[in-house]
């Protein structure tokens, strides 16, 4: 298996330049379209944002918009080109493994559904624009053990595959309902079952929020999906789902319109207007990234301390996901809920940790790795 750790080896920058959010908006705005608008950014802006853009998988998109400009032969242009080349090769390898996983599972009468990954990358006009590091395959509830047995029996295993028992991110929808809406898409000589647009949209929107609106490329995915929705898209499936996941669908579509210029189809008449605080919270996240900044950074910029504390401790996105509440229009109300909910969350987390330690002592001698790989 190959990956792009090469890109992650670039010098990390802890700069939180005021221009970062706008650079990220410009880079991703319309980037999913067949003919994206020309990239109106200077070499310097692209250089400053390079570390962040490359680490979050947006290098291919940047290169596509640079390759017809005079910036293509600059040093920074070549960095983005390198990212694009690695994406292309990685996609080739990943497509092979996806075909094989489907072949093996289908041979055992297990029909999985692919979540995200290739199913999102295919929304872009060419390969190599949207990298992905794994394949999330959901199998019918209760068939996980069987699917694991089948995949584990293959020599070499399937390190790229993450199996899921049903679709935990869409708790309000039954497997039968989701499966009925799913469809098969061609991949080479094979077909791959992907989510229906109704479920894909809800899943991507909630996933983006659950990960704190990071990386920005995921909002680009949502914009690409929104612009490719079929005429027959069933908006009722979203409004009738009472879960938190579906509650975020319309606000995130509004966000993609607001920040990236996505052209959303006509939303249902009774849909909520944009949440007034959401765009600023997301732009703040795009400015500071996900890295924990060193104290020296704040000592150089004391003015940022208060703002960062306010967002870190009262991050409205974190609040809504962790407390399991639906997005509220009032930021004040969300902060109030956060202050009340935090101690309860802390207790719940301690309880979970104690359970995990107990389980690990009794059952899990091996190290557990978790990654937030996109």
């Amino acid at each position, binding site marked *: 298996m*190959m990956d792009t750790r090469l890109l992650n080896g670039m010098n990390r920058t802890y700069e939180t330049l005021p221009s970062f959010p706008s650079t990220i908006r410009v880079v991703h705005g319309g980037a999913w379209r067949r003919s994206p608008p020309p990239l109106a950014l200077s070499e310097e802006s692209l250089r400053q944002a390079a570390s962040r853009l490359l680490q979050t998988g947006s290098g291919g998109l940047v290169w596509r918009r640079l390759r017809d400009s005079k910036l293509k032969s600059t040093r920074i242009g070549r960095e983005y080109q390198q990212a694009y080349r690695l994406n292309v090769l990685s996609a080739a390898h990943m497509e092979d493994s996806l075909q094989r996983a489907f072949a093996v599972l289908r041979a055992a009468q297990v029909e999985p559904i692919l979540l995200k990954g290739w199913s999102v990358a295919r929304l872009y006009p060419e390969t190599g624009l949207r990298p992905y590091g794994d394949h999330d395959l959901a199998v019918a509830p209760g068939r996980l053990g069987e699917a694991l047995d089948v995949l584990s029996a293959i020599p070499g295993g399937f*390190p790229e595959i993450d199996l899921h028992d049903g679709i935990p991110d869409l708790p309000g929808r039954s497997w039968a309902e989701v499966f009925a809406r799913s469809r098969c898409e061609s991949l080479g000589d094979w077909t791959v079952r992907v989510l229906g647009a109704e479920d894909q949209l809800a899943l991507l929107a909630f996933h983006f929020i659950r990960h704190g609106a990071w990386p920005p490329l995921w909002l680009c995915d949502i914009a690409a999906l929104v612009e490719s929705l079929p005429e027959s898209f069933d908006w009722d499936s979203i409004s009738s789902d009472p879960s938190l996941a579906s509650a975020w669908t319309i606000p995130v579509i509004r966000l993609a319109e607001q920040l990236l210029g996505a052209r959303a189809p006509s939303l249902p008449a009774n849909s909520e207007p944009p949440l007034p605080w959401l765009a600023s919270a997301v732009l703040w996240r795009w400015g500071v990234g996900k890295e924990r900044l060193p104290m020296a950074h704040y000592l150089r910029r004391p003015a940022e301390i208060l703002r960062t504390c306010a967002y870190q401790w009262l991050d409205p996105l974190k609040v809504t996901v962790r407390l399991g509440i639906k997005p509220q229009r009032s930021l004040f109300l969300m902060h109030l809920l956060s202050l009340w909910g935090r101690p309860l969350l802390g207790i719940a987390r301690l309880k979970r940790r104690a359970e995990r330690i107990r389980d690990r002592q009794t059952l899990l001698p091996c190290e557990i790795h978790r990654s937030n790989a996109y």
Partner: protein
Amino acid sequence: MNAPHARKEKLTIRDLPDETLVYDLERHKAHCLNATAALVWKHCDGKTPLEKLARILKDAQNLPAPEAAVSLALEQLNRRHLLQETMEPIFGTQRLSRREALKKVAATAVALPLIMTITAPLARVNASEIMTIDCKVKSFPSGRVFRDAPDGTTCTGGTCQGGKCVRSGPPVFVPVTSCGGQPDGTPCSVNGKIGTCVKGGCSTTPT
């Protein structure tokens, strides 16, 4: 070597409009071949002699010194393990040094065969927040263990043996080219298509 033969096994190859990308699954290295180098490489079928390779290059790119360009391309392909057997950088009876070859082709720098290598890192640890195979098949967040993963299962950075992860370098994920002696269901490849082994043969028919 009068008729060089391009290596095709354990490589992932993708053609782009101006270049060809090659990922070496054995050495974990990515190479980028420009159009000239790719043209030479694609005609290295083990039957085409060097003289004919030079003619092909001359016809396609109108190079003034195609022999030197072929020599230069082969030398680079050889150095990057993209040929089946190692070769001496010779052309006919005349041995060209790399510098001489470069001098001859330099006049047409645009068509200079060029292979750029991007050293790709080792395989990434791949696990899920929800489900992971790390020698224990378990669910998250409950951590409930279903069972030990079978020996030989790829785990993070190695393979499982007796329910423990033994580090053994990056997992290499390559379908077998021959199903002889392989259990049914083993991923295989035939004529560039991916399939699974069924009764000793490679079946590429989707189920």
